[in-house]
Structure formats: structure tokens, C-alpha cells
């Protein structure tokens, strides 16, 4: 398929951009942060996202979703990035929905997917244990017990874990601590005995939680996918999440670039607009080119997932690696070109830099994905 948005996709892009710009602009992020909102996002917004069909964008129509796939999901996430909107979209509508749709039993799908599409619940993925992403590094153990398992371990960084109605926990039913084989996914009720959830606040005003599991009992019906074979399923969902994070970072980078070029056109120093200084012009022009590359790899990664391309893991890593670097450059340049103003909390531009960093660190940074590309290409 051509590397270009279809008419339908352009409509989704425009409506997502309009929606988040209206309902969840940066001012809203500021409000939630400054009021130390206990949820860290606005439940009313989340409900509206269901009305718009966003919450279930990637969920098959048979399960109450819009069935529009990953390009559409990425466009929504890009608009989220552009406006720095706070929503549980990534954790619930992308990661968890993908896991359930690909790995869930008929009962699990019926029980959860329609409720996600309706934005009635938040579902969080509790997988990573190392500060630097290492998806096979799972030390949490699941020991057979009764007709199910007992889970014990710690997940220090669960996105939206503090507001989750359900957790999907990666635990090890066999194998050594960093082996892909032996990982199993479980649906866990965060209110179950032995689960402790502590909210942790982040530099970008998103929220995560440390989830501790102490002998938490789950039964056979709570296993998501096949026992011991959870890694492939996890990776598929992570690749969807990585491609969407690339889309979000693209939104972050593109908007911060737009704010910056606007500033360059208007801010005067030495009697002329600073955008007339050639050194800044060249840096901005270079950044423009990098952003064009970021757009291409993002669209390709999302398209490849929708098309079931055998190289979709490579393209997801390509997008996460490249856009992460571009977003870092774009937001760093943005702050520098804004000068002192850029260092103040009053200016929005700092929020973009914070989010670019946090998104880049989530589910593998450029170093992780560069290595992954090389390993997948066997060098």
C-alpha cells in the first residue's frame, strides 16, 4: 500500500487533532498537574474518547470497537502528543487491547474488550522490571497453586497502574530470569489480596505505579494466551505500543517545532527577528528534514502492523529509534531557541521536552532499538 494517508485516515487525523486541541490541550495538563489530581487524567475525557470511537479504535468491531487498526491508532496518539493530552489510551486501548485481541479467550475478549471500547475500564500492562527496557527480563514468578498460580514479584514502573481496573502481569512460569521462554501473562485484579499499588509521579506529569505482588492467587481462567509462551504475544503488543509511541513523539516534535519556528519569526533581538539569523535558520532547516524522516518511519511502522508485514518488528524499532532521536533534537533545540523563556514553567515548550524524554525511555530507547534492528538483521 502506498506510503500516504487515505482519505479516511486524513479524516481521523483531523478529527483527533480537533478533539484533543479542544478538550485536552496543554492547559489541561497543567491543571491536572497543579491540582495533583488523584487520577492524573480526566475520566470525562476518557468517556468522550469512547464516544468518538477512539478508545476502541484498534478493537475489532465484533467486540465493540471501531476496527480501524494501527494507522488510525497512531494518528490519535500523534494528536495526543501534539497536545500533550493525558489519557490511558496507550496502556488500555493499545497495549492491553492488543494483548486481549490477539491472545484472549472468547470469554476474556467478551468480558473486557467492549468495556475498553466504551472507556469503562483502564487496563494496565505490568511487564517491565528493569529500569532500562529488557522485555525478556522477567523475575516475577508464578508458581502452580490450586487450579491456578501464585504470583510474586515487583513491577516498578506500570503505566497507569494507579488507576487500573485490571492488570496484565507478565510472570515467569519457568526458565531463567532473562530467557524469552517461560513467560506467561495473567489478568490480575489490582484489588486482589497481596497486590500493592503505589503511585509514582513522573517528570512529564504522567503517572505510573509500583505494583508489588505477594503470593497473589490467580486461577486458570486468568491466564492470557498459552502458558510459558507469553513472550511473542508481549512483543507483538509492545511493537504496537512502540509504533504508537513513535507517533506520539512525532506529534510532540512536530508541535514543538511549530512553536519554535513561530517564536523565531516573532522574537526580536539585536533589532531583528531571531529567525533571520542564518545559524538558527540552518539548524531549523535541518530539523525540518529530520521531521520529514520521522513522519515516514512512523507511517511505515503503523502500516506494516496493519498489513501483517513480516518485518513489522524491524519497522517498529526503526520508528521508535529514529523518532526518539528526532524528538529529542527537536525539543532540545526548541528550548535552546526559546532562550530563558524556554526554561520557565510558564512556557509550554518545557513540557514537550519532558514528554519527549519520557516517551523515548518507555519500551526501549534508541540504543535498545538500534541494537534490536541490528540483531534482527543479523549483524
Amino acid at each position, binding site marked *: 500500500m*502506498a*506510503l*500516504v*494517508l487515505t482519505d479516511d485516515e486524513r479524516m481521523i487525523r483531523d478529527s483527533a487533532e480537533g478533539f484533543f486541541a479542544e478538550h485536552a490541550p496543554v492547559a489541561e495538563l497543567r491543571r491536572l498537574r497543579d491540582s495533583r489530581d488523584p487520577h492524573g487524567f480526566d475520566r470525562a475525557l476518557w468517556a468522550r474518547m469512547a464516544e468518538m470511537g477512539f478508545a476502541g479504535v484498534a478493537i475489532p468491531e465484533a467486540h465493540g470497537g471501531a476496527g480501524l487498526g494501527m494507522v488510525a491508532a497512531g494518528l490519535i496518539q500523534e494528536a495526543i502528543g501534539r497536545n500533550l493530552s493525558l489519557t490511558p489510551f496507550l496502556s488500555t486501548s493499545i497495549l492491553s487491547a492488543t494483548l486481549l485481541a490477539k491472545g484472549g479467550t472468547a470469554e476474556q475478549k467478551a468480558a473486557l474488550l467492549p468495556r475498553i471500547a466504551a472507556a469503562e475500564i483502564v487496563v494496565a500492562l505490568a511487564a517491565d522490571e528493569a529500569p532500562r527496557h529488557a522485555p525478556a527480563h522477567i523475575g516475577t514468578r508464578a508458581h502452580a497453586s490450586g487450579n491456578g498460580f501464585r504470583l510474586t514479584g515487583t513491577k516498578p514502573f506500570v503505566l497507569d497502574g494507579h488507576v487500573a481496573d485490571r492488570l496484565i502481569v507478565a510472570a515467569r512460569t519457568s526458565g531463567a530470569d532473562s530467557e524469552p521462554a517461560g513467560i506467561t501473562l495473567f489478568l490480575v485484579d489490582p484489588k486482589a489480596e497481596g497486590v500493592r499499588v503505589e503511585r509514582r509521579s513522573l517528570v512529564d506529569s504522567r503517572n505510573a505505579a509500583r505494583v508489588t505482588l505477594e503470593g497473589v492467587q490467580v486461577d486458570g481462567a486468568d491466564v492470557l494466551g498459552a502458558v510459558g509462551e507469553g513472550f511473542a504475544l508481549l512483543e507483538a503488543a509492545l511493537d504496537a505500543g512502540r509504533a504508537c509511541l513513535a507517533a506520539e513523539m512525532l506529534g510532540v516534535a512536530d508541535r514543538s517545532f511549530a512553536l519554535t*519556528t513561530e517564536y*523565531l*519569526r516573532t522574537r526580536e533581538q539585536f533589532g*531583528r*527577528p531571531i*529567525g*533571520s*539569523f*542564518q545559524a*538558527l*535558520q*540552518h539548524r*531549523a*532547516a*535541518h530539523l*525540518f*528534514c529530520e521531521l*520529514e*524522516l*520521522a*513522519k*515516514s*518511519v512512523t*507511517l*511505515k511502522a503503523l502500516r506494516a502492523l496493519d498489513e501483517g508485514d513480516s518485518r513489522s518488528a524491524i519497522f517498529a524499532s*526503526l520508528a521508535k*529509534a*529514529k523518532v526518539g532521536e528526532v524528538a529529542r533534537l527537536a525539543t532540545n533545540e526548541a528550548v535552546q531557541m526559546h532562550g530563558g523563556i524556554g526554561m520557565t514553567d510558564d512556557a509550554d515548550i518545557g513540557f514537550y521536552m519532558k514528554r519527549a524524554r519520557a516517551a523515548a525511555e518507555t519500551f526501549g530507547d534508541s540504543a535498545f532499538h*538500534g*541494537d534490536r*534492528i*541490528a*540483531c534482527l*538483521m*543479523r*549483524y
Partner: protein
Amino acid sequence: MDETAALAEFRAETRAWLEANCPEEMRQPVRSDSDICWGGRRFVFSSPAQKLWLERMATRGWTVPEWPRAYGGGGLSKEEARVLAQEMRRIRARPPLSSFGIWMLGPALLRYGSEAQKAEHLPKIARGEIRWCQGYSEPGAGSDLASLRTSAVLEGDHFIVNGQKVWTSYADRADWIFCLVRTEPDAPKHLGISFLLFDMESPGVSTAPIRLISGSSPFCQTFFDNVRVPRANLVGERGRGWEIAKYLLTHEREMIGGMDSGAAEGRDGLAQVAKRALGLGEDGRLPDSMLRTDVIRQEIDSWAFALTMERVKDEAKAGQGVGALSSMLKYYGTELNKRRMELMMSLQGTEGLLWEGEDREGDLARAWLRSRANSIEGGTSEVQLNIIAKTMLRLPAA
């Protein structure tokens, strides 16, 4: 996407014709300069097959498939031309003719030329009878092309041309030149320029090759000493040649920018070269971790750039293009290619330093040195960044 019935039929006919008419020898990859057919009065074909292939293609107008039939073209639609290109790739057919006349002058004449000029020059370009060169840069006017000083003074029915050009590709082998000259010395600098065509055999024209750091000499200095050019050889309006020049430059830029495609199909990827040069460690990774890092970053950027070329083309087709991205492609593509050649040199270590000797020694070093010109010719990287800042970002002038 489904092909229309008409296009499918055209494909079938084209395939059959190519199978029947493309000589076996012309289905081999281009291995050296002599495999390229440049045409022209003095061109010596490297084989009878090369000559035959040109004649057969020219007869159908397929050296310039989209030009009108009246001017020696194939009269094909965009879609038909794409089918022809696909079918030629399928059998790995070589281009029958390479020429600045096709790439640069032809499109400009089609847009700006008089009827007489089109009728005179286009068929000869299409048939490879006349080889053209480009007279743009001058010693004092590099990036600042519009400050050129070669003068053309009208005396009766002739312009008298005096001055000097540099960087004229293959001027010593070309038959005719398309040349920017100053006809209005008192006009503002962009408004005094005209676009002239003339025969390189005219009295007063001489050339001297320029030796490059790579050792080769594809470029010349070209001198004009009272060269008489018929007034009829002026293309477009007098003093309005700058517009034509810019139109041409955009074409050139896209051509040069497309040169990096490290991760693109068909060409040996950098990672493959690295694997051969360094081998793999026990962990399946390249053993030199710093070089591996550089290779990975280069491959990521090359791939991202190749996807961007694809997207830009697809968007143009879909009518969604955001405007001229040729400066972006030119700037980024050439910088990428320079970095790629640096890495290739690093991978080969001291073997990459060899210059003359047995076999193909020196090829890599020459290619590395050649790549340094990419970001200078056809508008420097700095000029492309200026253009992007102005046209795409609308930043205020200095």
C-alpha cells in the same frame, strides 16, 4: 490496485516488444563508464548491441517516453511510462540513452521553448544525435549563481558571447551547450540573465578539463571569446533566463539527492559490507562495538530516508504533496551519502587507502572523494538549507 484493462494490454504489448527487441547484452548491469550510452556526434558505441538498442528504442520514442510524439517522444501517459519502466526493470534492461538533454534541457524546452526550438532540438535529443552540456557556474559565481558575468551583447541578429564557465560536465565531449549569460548588464542581477543555446563547435569556444581530487576529470572550464550565437537561439524572453535556470536546478537537485539508498533494495547494504569486513562475534554481533553503533545509526537514517523518498513520491501521486521537497532530499541525501562513504572507508581500514595498483584498488577511495562533491554541486548544502528556511519554514530574510 487493479490495473485498468487498457494498461494491462499496454503492459503485455510492452513486455513482448522488449523481450523481442532488447539485446541480451543490454540486460546486464552497468559495470563501467563505457557501458553508458551518452550519444552525440562523436560518440563511439562500445558494442553493436548498444547502438542497436538505442536505435530501436528511439524509433518508438521510448528514450523519452512521455515527450510528445511530434518531438520524437513516445507520447505515453504517466501510467504507461511507469509500466514501461517496470517492464524494463523486470528484464534489467539498461537505459538506452543517458543525457543532460533528456534530464534537463528537454523539460525546459518543452515548457519555455518556441515551436521552432522544440522542433529543431528535441528530436535530436531523443535520438541521441546531439549531446548537450550545461553552462551555469562561473569562477566568481558558485553558490551565488545569479552573479554570473558571462556577457552576451546583441549585435544585429547575433549575440556576441564572452566569458568563462566552470564545472561544465563533459564539455569536452558535448556538441551543444545550454548556457546562462548576462544580456542586461544594468538590470537587477536576477533580471539580466538570458538562456542561450549554441554549438560547441562555434568559433571562439574552447574547453580545458579540471582535474579533481579523485583523479578524474568529468568537468571542464569553458571559455567564450566573441562567440557568435544567432538571436533565434534565445530560449524564452530576454532577461528572463533565471526562471528557466531555477526550473532546471530543481530537476538536477532531485537527481543528486536520490543517490543515497544504503538500505534500499538492489544495492549492497552497509551492514552487509560491515559483516564481510569485520565478521561476526560469538554473540552474532559485529565485533567492533563503536563501528557497529555507527553502522546502525547510518542504516537507520538511510532507511528512514529511503522511506521518505517513497512517501514523497506517493504523496505527490496522491496530490497531497506539501510542495517542493527537492531541497530537503538533495541536502539530506547527499550528507547521508558522504557519511556512508566515510563509514565504508573506516570499515576497510588501511585497504581503503590504496590508490593505484592491481585490480580495482583505489575504487573505494575515489568513490569516497567523489562523494564529497555531492553536497557542493547542484547547489551546496548551505544553499539548500537557506531555501528550506525561506520557502518551507517562512523564516524572515537576514
